[in-house]
């Protein structure tokens, strides 16, 4: 590697790029001839015609510069000739962040229109991933990543809140239909279908869950919702963090296996569909031994098989369809939603362009979570607003939750006279329940509930627990963590934080004690201070890595000396799994350790 780079973070990015340089990626990096075709395809360019920095090839050039300078022979020999001038200082990273996160929704429209087959959106995603891995990302992405690592879903929904919400929806539906069979089953082992959702459904707008439950009921389906591993969305797709992508997918896969289901149904969510069905198995490098399908396919099948009957005249407003980028361009999934839509509404008209040529909702790629770029996003949304207005439709239907919010924003901003709906809503609204499968199954006479054994009610003493404690309570549940730290105050502080997050802690005050304890106890993870009396952290780290008994235990350096980074990473041993500067921020510590534990578990398995 070149020694001209001043920034440790950029050096690290160069290293992290190496394993991503597959033949396809290199093809995209070297294939661009800067012909300008992509220029005309991008909604950012169309709405910022005088800003050359909006051109897709310019955005991809940021990664290209890094690649050419450090990996391609032309850039190593003639850097000036081939534009191999990557940034070298930390201060340059903010600009890279703004380009990668703030001027592209990774919608891949440019990719589809490149005569050279350059996948610009993938290059942009790689740039996001490199930045995220050295800690440079928008605040919104940081928060969502933290919640994903700690609680297994991107909106920080606690398990008990999730289950309680489903129970509430279930009761309402049973009451509305006056039929016990309309219950939403949770964790039912052996069900035909496991149904997963986007957290915004359970946190803010559960109408789609009730509608889906109604359709499953009408089709007399044997289905269930999992109590864990239910978040099909995957911020790894947006942040470029493949490790998170793998961990999020594995939650679904493992829960599905535990429930013994053969079919995972993904609610209408573009990035959920893409990251679960198309990317997840690759990120997690696991085999996939069950069917994954969009709920659109499920609903369509029910109609074709006659399990549900619909009356399209119940949806008579003029309707148009918006293709989600992830569904249409990345998964080739665009005819089935149309087929279904035409079965459940009377007045359907296409918007133009459509299918793989459709314009982004402008809220894709995680844009809805990054407020700092909202003004630019709304300007770029003019393209979409005009496209919708031209159809004259009163309802824009889409099969993506992200598009629902993106389109909702631009409809308000540009004061369009229409609303956004999903197919599940139209199907539920068009149901003719008395002709559906459920009506052909006689209601069982209510079996009197067996009188339950009188149970001694446990005495519950209400304890006021601050919210932040509740939130991270289970993040490290049952994990055994060795804290190596010479200062007593810090040691107690770290131990308390980790115990609050559910961990079992062990402690050591210097390098020798750390190694002895690690050998004797084989903890799941070690946090290691660097400057300690006696055998210091650097020596201890090398010794741990060279000891076959304990070399696989993940290590997170926690130090007041960020400048030691280089000393540690330059050693001829496997680098530490994490490196955190003091003072330690509670939330970052727990999220980081959780990430390390998840990632190393995946690699070890």
């Amino acid at each position: 590697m070149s020694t001209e780079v001043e920034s440790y973070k950029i050096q690290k990015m160069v290293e992290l790029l190496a394993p991503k340089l597959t033949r396809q990626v290199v093809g995209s990096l070297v294939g661009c001839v800067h012909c300008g075709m992509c220029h005309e395809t991008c909604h950012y360019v169309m709405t910022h015609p005088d800003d050359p920095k909006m051109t897709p090839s310019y955005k991809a050039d940021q990664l290209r510069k890094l690649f050419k300078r450090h990996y391609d022979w032309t850039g190593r020999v003639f850097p000036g000739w081939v534009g191999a001038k990557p940034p070298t200082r930390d201060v340059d990273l903010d600009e890279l962040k703004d380009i990668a996160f703030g001027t592209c929704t990774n919608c891949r429209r440019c990719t589809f229109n490149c005569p050279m087959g350059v996948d610009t959106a993938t290059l942009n995603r790689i740039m996001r991933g490199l930045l995220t891995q050295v800690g440079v990302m928008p605040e919104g992405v940081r928060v969502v990543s933290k919640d994903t690592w700690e609680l297994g879903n991107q909106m920080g929904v606690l398990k008990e809140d999730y289950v309680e919400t489903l129970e509430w929806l279930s009761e309402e539906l049973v009451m509305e239909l006056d039929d016990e069979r309309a219950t939403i089953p949770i964790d039912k082992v052996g069900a035909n279908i496991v149904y997963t959702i986007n957290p915004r459904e359970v946190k803010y707008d559960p109408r789609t869950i009730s509608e889906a439950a109604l359709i499953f009921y009408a089709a007399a389906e044997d289905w269930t919702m999992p109590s864990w591993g239910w978040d099909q969305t995957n911020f790894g797709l947006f942040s470029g963090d493949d490790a998170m992508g793998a961990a999020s997918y594995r939650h679904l896969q493992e829960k599905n296996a535990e429930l013994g289901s053969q079919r995972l149904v993904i609610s209408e969510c573009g990035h959920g569909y893409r990251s679960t069905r198309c990317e997840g198995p690759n990120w997690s490098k696991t085999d996939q031994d069950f069917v994954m399908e969009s709920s659109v396919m499920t609903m369509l099948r029910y109609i074709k098989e006659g399990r549900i009957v619909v009356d399209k005249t119940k949806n008579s407003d003029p309707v148009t369809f918006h293709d989600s980028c992830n569904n249409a361009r990345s998964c080739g999934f665009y005819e089935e939603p149309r087929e279904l839509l035409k079965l459940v509404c009377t007045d359907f008209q296409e918007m133009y362009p459509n299918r793989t040529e459709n314009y982004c909702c402008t809220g894709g790629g995680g844009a809805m979570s990054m407020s700092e770029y909202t003004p630019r996003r709304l300007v770029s949304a003019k393209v979409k607003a005009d496209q919708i207005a031209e159809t004259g439709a009163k309802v824009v239907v889409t099969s993506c939750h992200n598009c629902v919010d993106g389109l909702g924003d631009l409809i308000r901003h540009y004061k369009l006279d229409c609303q956004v709906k999903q197919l599940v809503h139209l199907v539920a609204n068009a149901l003719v329940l008395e002709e559906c499968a459920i009506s052909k199954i006689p209601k069982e006479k209510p079996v009197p509930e067996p009188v339950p054994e009188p149970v001694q009610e446990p005495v519950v003493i209400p304890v006021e627990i601050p919210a932040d404690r509740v939130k991270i309570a289970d993040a490290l549940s049952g994990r055994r963590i060795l804290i190596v730290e010479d200062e007593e105050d810090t040691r107690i502080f770290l131990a308390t934080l980790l115990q609050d997050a559910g961990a079992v802690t062990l402690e050591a005050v210097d390098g020798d004690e750390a190694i002895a304890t690690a050998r004797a106890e084989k903890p799941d993870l070690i946090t290691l201070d660097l400057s300690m009396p006696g055998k210091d952290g650097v020596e201890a780290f090398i010794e741990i890595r060279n000891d076959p008994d304990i070399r696989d235990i993940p290590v997170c350096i926690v130090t007041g000396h960020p400048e030691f980074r280089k000393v540690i990473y330059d050693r001829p041993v496997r680098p530490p799994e994490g490196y955190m500067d003091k003072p330690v921020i509670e939330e970052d510590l727990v999220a980081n350790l959780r990430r390390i534990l998840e990632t190393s578990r995946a690699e070890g398995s």
Partner: protein
Amino acid sequence: MAIFEYGDVSIEVDEDGFMLEPDQWNEEVAAALATTEAVEELTEEHWKVMNYLRDYYLEFGVAPMIRKLCKETGFPLKKIYELFPSGPAKGACKLAGLAKPTGCV
């Protein structure tokens, strides 16, 4: 960061129009913010929702689940959407002076 101004009200908001300093919230601010969310008049029912959201947020630092909001106010979900057409996350939370909900919303 941006400044939102309406009448005598002048507050710092993020680029999505959510308050940055929730302490500056008061009824006048809520009424001003309501003009951005197609809420024409703030009724007692609006205040009931906003007050609950606010109390919860000040205590726990996050917006409550929709389940809790419906349970505590006694309003069905449909009613919440009637009161705040943009929905609980983008409508009600914004008027109640909460920070923008995290994630893809």
